[in-house]
C-alpha cells in the first residue's frame, strides 16, 4: 500500500501569486473579443410580447442585441439528458423571474451593460406560482428520478402498519430552504468560432459534458468543439451541467462572427446556474422500547421548475443507513415559476440526512437513550435496501474515535443543563453517509528525456486538489519528486474524464493514471534491462524498481541509472503510455458508501438566540485518503458548508414578484472566518479493496452530510428548542427561550 502523503498543492504557488488563469481571464489570439451582458425577465410567467432594442442599439460600441427573434436556432434534442434546454432564446416563453431574455453584445463591457439596461421588454403575463408552499399540495412524481436510474419510491416490509403499531413514534416535518452554491469565481465563458470549430474557455466542472452539450446544440461532431478550463474557483455542483449562459455565449459569438465573453454577475448567479431546492420532508420513525427501529418512513417533496426536472433525492440515505425491516421512501416534486434546481454539494444527502438525523435525535430523547447508543443499536451491517454487503463500513470506529476526541461523555443528557456563564451549551451528533461513485476515465503519462513527466487527463480541479493527486500518482509510480511532474487537466483535448461531481474524480481518474504509469514504468524497465550499455543490463525487469528519478536494482539500490541517461542513450524523446479504467462488477456485488460521525458543541445566547458553533469534530472513513493535507482541507470545507446550511444560508424569494431578494454576498450569508471555530478532522483508517484499484472512496461531499443535523441537535440540547426549519436563525430560536 502506498503511504499517505501530505504534499502541498502543486498549483498553490500559481494561485497565491495570481498566475492561475481562470476562464474570464483568457483572451482570444486576436484582440477582437466582444462582451456580452444578459438581460433578464422581470416577471415570473408569461410571454414576451415585444422587445424594443432601438435605444440599446444606439449605445456606442453595441454590436448586436440577441433576442429570441434573431438568435441562432439550435438543436434542443441532442445536448444530453442532463443539459438544461431552457432558456436559450428559442421561443417567447417566460417561466421565471430573472430568466435570460436577451443578450447585449458590445465592444466594451460597459457598453454592453448600458445597452442591457436599455432593452425594453413588454410581456403578456400569465398566472405564476412564485413560491413553494411549506405544505405543498398538487405535487407530482418525478419522471426521471436519478436520471432514470432508480425508482422515486421504495418500500420494504410493512412500514405503515409497523409505524402504527410502534411503541415509540416520531412523526415530524422538516424543511430546508433554497440554497445557492456561491463559488467565489463567477461563471464565465469565452466562446470563439473558427469556421465550424468552436473553442470555449469555461468555468467548468465537466469539460466533456460541456462539449457534448455544445456539439449537440450546434449540430457539430464532438471533435469540433474544444472546452478549456484549467482552473476553477469552486463549483459545488453549480458548474456541473451546461447552463444556458455557456450556450448563449457561443450563440452570440456565432451571431456576430467574433469571439464573445460572458461573465455572470454575482446577482445573476442566483438565477442562472441552479440551486439546492427547497424541501419539505415528512419523517416518521417507529421503535420498540429498547430503541430498535421498527419503521422508517421518509416522504420528501422538493421544489422543481416549471420546465425541466430536478428531484432532490432526500430519502436515499434513509433506505440504507439503519437496520430496519420496514422502510418506505417517496420523492415528489412541487412545481413553481423559478429556475431549474441542480446538484449542490451532497445533493439529497445534505437535506435528507438533516431530516433523518434530527428525527433520530428526537427518537433518542423520546426513548431516554444516548444518541450514539441508539445509532449503534440500529447499526446496519449490510445494506438492507440493496440486500448486499458493504464493500467496507467503518462507521462504528467513526462514532468511537469522534466521541473520544470530542469527549462526548461529558454531555449531561438533559437539555438546558449545561452552561457557560449566561450561555447555554449544547452537544449534538449525527451520522454522515455518502455513496461511492465512479465513472470511466482515461489518462496519458509521458516520461521525458529530461527526467520529468507529464500526466494528462481531462478532469477538472475545482479547488479540490486534482492537480496534486495526479502529480502524486505519477511521482509514486515513477519514483519522481513532485516538482518533476507536470499535471494537465481541464481540456477536452486531453483524455476523457467524467464530471467533477459526486465525489468521484479521484476514484475515477486515479486507476487510469495508475495504469498509464505502470505501462510507462514497464516499458522503461524493459528498455534498461535490454540495453547493453545500461548498468542494469541483463537483469529481469521484475528485479528492478524506480526511485528518486532513477531506475535501480531492488536488491542493490546503488546499481542503476537515471531516466535521462537511459533515454539519451536510446535516443528517445519520451516514453509514453495511455491508461483507461472503468467500474467493474463491484457495484453489482457491493453496496459502496463512505461514512462518518459529526460532533458539535454550540453556545446559545438565551437572550438573543444567537448560535455559535464552538467546536466541531468530524470522524470520517472514506477508504484511502490520497493526500492527507488537501483531504483534510476539503473535509473542513465540507463541514463549513454544512454550518452555513445549518445557521445562515437561505435564498429569499419575494412573494409578490418571484424575484430573489438577497442575491448578494452581503445578504446571502455564507459563514465567515469568525463563524468557524476549530474543526478537528479524524481520518479513520479504512481499507477497501473492492471499490476501485486504489481503494479511495471520495471525500468531497461526505463532510457536509450530517453537519446541519448535528448542529440542530446540539441546539436542541442547549435550549430544548427543536428547529425543524433551516436555517436556525436567532429570531426562530428566541420565541421559545426565556427573555
Amino acid at each position, binding site marked *: 500500500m502506498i503511504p499517505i502523503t501530505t504534499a502541498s498543492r502543486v498549483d498553490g504557488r500559481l494561485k497565491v501569486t495570481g498566475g492561475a488563469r481562470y476562464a474570464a481571464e483568457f483572451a482570444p489570439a486576436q484582440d477582437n473579443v466582444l462582451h456580452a451582458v444578459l438581460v433578464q425577465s422581470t416577471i415570473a410567467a408569461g410571454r414576451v410580447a415585444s422587445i424594443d432594442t432601438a435605444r440599446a442599439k444606439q449605445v456606442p460600441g453595441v454590436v448586436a442585441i440577441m433576442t429570441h427573434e434573431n438568435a441562432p436556432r439550435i438543436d434542443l434534442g441532442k445536448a444530453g439528458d442532463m443539459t438544461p434546454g431552457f432558456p436559450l432564446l428559442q421561443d417567447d416563453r417566460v417561466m421565471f423571474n430573472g430568466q435570460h431574455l436577451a443578450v447585449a453584445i458590445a465592444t466594451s463591457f460597459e*457598453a454592453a451593460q448600458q445597452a442591457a*439596461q436599455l432593452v425594453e421588454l413588454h410581456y403578456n403575463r400569465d398566472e405564476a406560482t412564485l413560491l413553494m408552499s411549506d405544505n405543498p399540495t398538487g405535487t407530482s412524481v418525478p419522471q426521471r428520478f436519478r436520471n432514470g436510474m432508480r425508482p422515486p419510491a421504495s418500500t420494504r416490509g410493512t412500514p405503515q402498519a409497523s409505524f402504527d403499531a410502534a411503541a415509540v413514534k416520531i412523526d415530524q416535518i422538516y424543511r430546508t430552504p433554497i440554497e445557492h452554491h456561491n463559488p467565489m469565481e463567477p461563471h464565465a465563458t469565452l466562446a470563439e468560432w473558427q469556421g465550424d470549430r468552436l473553442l470555449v474557455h469555461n468555468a467548468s466542472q465537466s469539460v466533456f459534458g460541456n462539449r457534448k452539450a455544445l456539439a449537440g446544440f450546434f449540430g457539430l461532431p464532438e471533435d469540433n468543439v474544444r472546452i478549456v478550463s484549467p482552473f476553477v474557483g469552486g463549483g459545488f455542483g453549480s458548474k456541473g451541467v451546461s447552463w444556458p449562459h455557456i450556450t448563449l455565449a457561443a450563440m452570440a459569438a456565432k451571431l456576430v462572427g467574433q469571439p464573445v465573453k460572458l461573465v455572470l454577475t454575482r446577482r445573476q448567479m442566483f438565477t442562472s446556474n441552479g440551486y439546492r431546492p427547497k424541501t419539505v420532508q415528512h419523517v416518521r420513525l417507529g421503535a420498540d422500547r429498547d430503541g430498535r427501529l421498527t419503521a422508517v418512513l421518509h416522504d420528501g417533496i422538493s421544489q422543481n421548475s416549471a420546465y425541466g426536472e430536478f428531484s432532490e433525492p432526500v430519502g436515499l440515505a434513509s433506505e440504507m443507513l439503519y437496520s430496519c425491516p420496514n422502510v418506505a421512501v417517496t420523492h415528489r416534486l412541487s412545481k413553481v415559476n423559478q429556475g431549474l434546481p441542480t446538484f449542490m454539494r451532497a445533493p439529497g444527502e445534505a437535506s435528507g440526512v438533516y431530516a433523518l438525523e434530527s428525527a433520530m435525535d428526537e427518537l433518542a430523547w423520546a426513548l431516554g437513550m444516548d444518541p450514539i447508543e441508539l445509532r449503534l443499536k440500529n447499526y446496519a451491517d449490510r445494506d438492507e435496501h440493496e440486500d448486499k454487503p458493504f464493500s467496507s463500513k467503518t462507521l462504528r470506529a467513526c462514532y468511537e474515535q469522534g466521541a473520544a476526541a470530542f469527549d462526548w461523555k461529558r454531555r449531561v443528557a438533559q437539555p438546558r443543563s449545561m452552561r457557560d456563564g449566561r450561555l447555554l451549551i449544547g452537544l449534538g451528533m449525527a451520522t454522515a453517509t455518502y455513496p461511492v461513485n465512479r465513472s470511466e476515465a482515461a489518462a496519458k503519462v509521458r516520461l521525458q528525456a529530461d527526467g520529468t513527466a507529464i500526466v494528462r487527463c481531462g478532469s477538472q480541479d475545482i479547488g479540490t486538489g486534482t492537480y496534486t493527486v495526479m502529480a502524486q500518482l505519477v511521482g509514486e509510480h515513477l519514483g519522481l519528486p513532485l516538482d518533476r511532474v507536470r499535471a494537465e487537466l481541464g481540456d477536452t483535448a486531453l483524455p476523457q474524464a467524467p464530471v467533477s461531481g459526486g465525489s468521484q474524480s479521484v476514484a475515477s481518474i486515479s486507476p487510469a493514471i495508475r495504469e498509464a504509469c505502470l505501462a510507462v514504468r514497464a516499458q522503461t524497465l524493459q528498455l534498461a534491462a535490454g540495453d547493453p550499455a545500461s548498468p542494469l543490463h541483463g537483469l529481469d525487469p521484475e528485479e528492478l524498481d524506480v526511485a528518486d528519478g532513477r531506475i535501480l536494482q531492488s536488491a542493490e539500490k546503488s546499481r542503476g541509472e537515471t531516466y535521462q541517461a537511459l533515454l539519451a542513450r536510446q535516443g528517445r524523446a519520451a516514453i509514453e503510455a495511455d491508461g483507461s479504467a472503468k467500474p467493474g462488477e463491484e457495484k453489482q456485488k457491493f453496496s459502496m458508501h463512505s461514512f462518518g460521525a459529526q460532533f458539535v458543541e454550540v453556545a446559545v445566547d438565551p437572550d*438573543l438566540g444567537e448560535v455559535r458553533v464552538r467546536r466541531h469534530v468530524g470522524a470520517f472513513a472514506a477508504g484511502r485518503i490520497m493526500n492527507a493535507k488537501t483531504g483534510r482541507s476539503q473535509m473542513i470545507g465540507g463541514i463549513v458548508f454544512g454550518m452555513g446550511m445549518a445557521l*445562515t444560508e437561505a435564498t429569499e424569494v419575494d412573494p409578490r414578484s418571484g424575484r430573489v431578494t438577497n442575491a448578494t454576498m452581503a445578504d446571502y450569508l455564507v459563514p465567515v472566518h469568525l463563524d468557524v471555530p476549530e474543526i478537528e478532522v479524524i481520518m479513520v483508517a479504512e481499507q477497501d479493496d473492492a471499490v476501485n484499484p486504489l481503494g479511495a472512496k471520495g471525500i468531497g461531499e461526505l463532510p457536509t452530510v450530517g453537519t446541519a443535523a448535528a448542529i440542530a441537535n446540539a441546539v436542541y440540547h442547549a435550549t430544548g428548542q427543536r428547529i425543524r426549519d433551516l436555517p436556525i436563525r436567532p*429570531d426562530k430560536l428566541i420565541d421559545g427561550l426565556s*427573555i
Partner: protein
Amino acid sequence: MYFRPTTIDEAIGALASQGGRILAGGTDFFATQGDRPVLGPVLDISAIDALKGIRVEADQIRIGACATWSEVIAADLPPAFDALKAAAAEVGGWQIQNLGTIAGNLCNASPAADGVPPLLALDAAIELAGPAGTRRLPLDQFILGPRRTALAPGEMVVAILVPRRFEDARSHFMKLGGRRYLVISIVMVAAQVALDLQGRVAGARVAVGSCSAVACRLPALERALLGVAAGAGLAGLVRTEHLAPLRPIDDVRATALYRLEAAQTLIGRALDACLSEPAHA
C-alpha cells in the same frame, strides 16, 4: 465625465457647473451601482487635502470627509470614541476599512449604517460646503430618511465635527447580525456613560440603529439613567417604553418583534459594558 479636484472650492465649482455624484472611498458608490454602468459625471474628492485626516481642535474633533474607517481606528481619541472605533472595526474587512469613509457612510444614509449610532451618541454635527458658503447641521437633522440627506444641490460634506464635551465618558458599540462578521446589522447599539465621583450617572447617551428608518437616540432612557447609582449595573433599568422611538420592520434579516427584544438586551449590555471596560489603550 470624471473630475478629481484638489481643493474644496474647485469641487464646489464643479458641482455648480456640471453636477455629478460624489465619489470618496467608493465602497458604497460601486456597490449601489450594481450591474449598471457608471453614467453621468463623477466628482472624485479623494485628492482634496483639506478633507483628509482627523484633527483635535480646541473645542471639537474634526473628522475630515475623506477620513477612512482605518484612520478612525488608528487615531488617538478619547474613550468616548471607543464606540465609534468599534463600529469602524465592524465595517467590512480591512480592504473596505482602508478605503471607505465615515462621511460616505453618513451620506449613503442606510438605516443600517454602522457609523451613525456612535456619532449620534457623540452629538456629532456635519459641516457642509456649497455655493452659498458653509453651514453646520446636527447629525440627526442631516440624515432625513433611508437614502435621504439634507444635502442641498451643489453641496458636499466637508467634515464631521464632534464637540469635546464628553471626552471622559466610556462608550461601547454592539452589533447583532446573521453571522459573526461582515454582515448588515439586525440591531446595533452605541452607548456612552459618564459617572460622577460618587459613581452616579452624570450623563448617558444611547443610540440604536437598524430599528428605525434613521438611527435614533433614546432620550427617555437617557433621562431615566441620570443620577442613578451605577454600582449595581444599568441593564435592569432599560424598559420597553424607553424604546418608543424605535420602529423596526420585518425583513429578510429578522422580524420586527425580534429586533425590539434584541435591542433591549443589547442596550443593557452596552450600558453595563461602559461601566466595566477599561478605556481604550
